[in-house]
């Protein structure tokens, strides 16, 4: 399941909804991304996430399908917010449920790595010097490249 939304989400509730009644699930891995108040070189008062409506949903759906192809998952969820957010606010949530912890952990990391390099979102940070578009990090490409099937 994927959701692209402006409003906040409730991590505990999302995990409950996803696992509720499915007693085959032994492990639930999750990742929650938050807005930090410090970027590489400036203090951040807020950020705005721009995205490409339509393509975002398409990419997230593809990424999730790929994770379900690679691992035996009982359930999965990606929520990504857009719009203006302040430090401490929740940006992204990925949850994967599986029989065993290994596949839950791996697929959760896989989803985050691919989301970081494929999902069309762009961060504009509000710094004391004004708005600043965040540069993509090489380490994200490196992280994603380890999942390339040989």
């Amino acid at each position: 399941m994927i959701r692209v939304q402006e409003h906040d989400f409730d991590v505990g509730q999302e995990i409950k909804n996803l696992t509720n009644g499915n007693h085959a699930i032994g492990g639930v891995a999750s990742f929650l991304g938050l807005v930090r108040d410090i970027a590489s070189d400036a203090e951040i008062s807020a950020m705005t996430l721009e995205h490409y409506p339509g393509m975002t949903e398409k990419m997230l759906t593809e990424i999730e399908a790929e994770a379900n192809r690679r691992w035996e998952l009982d359930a999965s969820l990606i929520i990504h917010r857009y719009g203006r957010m302040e430090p401490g606010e929740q940006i992204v949530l990925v949850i994967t449920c599986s029989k065993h912890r290994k596949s839950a952990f791996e697929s959760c990391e896989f989803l985050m790595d691919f989301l970081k390099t494929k999902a069309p979102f762009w961060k504009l940070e509000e710094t004391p010097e004004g708005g600043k578009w965040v540069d993509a990090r090489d380490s994200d490409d490196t992280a994603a490249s380890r999942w390339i099937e040989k």
Partner: protein
Amino acid sequence: MKILYFAWLRTTIGKPLEEITPPETVKTVKDLLDWLPSLGENYSIVQEKSDLLRIAINQEYANLDQEIKQGDEIALFPPVTGG
């Protein structure tokens, strides 16, 4: 043909999207990027920052040599930074 711009491509070119009608000689993504600067000074950014340019055709990532055709939705944007 609809073309969309995101992030600093949007702010530099000065609009989020527009209808364009490239000449018939524009057959591929690369042709399109070579032709865009003829629309005005702001568009030279697609050449200047070509390393940082990502392209989507109909909401799927595309390569420079991919063909474009009437009715396609083209998008130009920098490397993504969500998550």
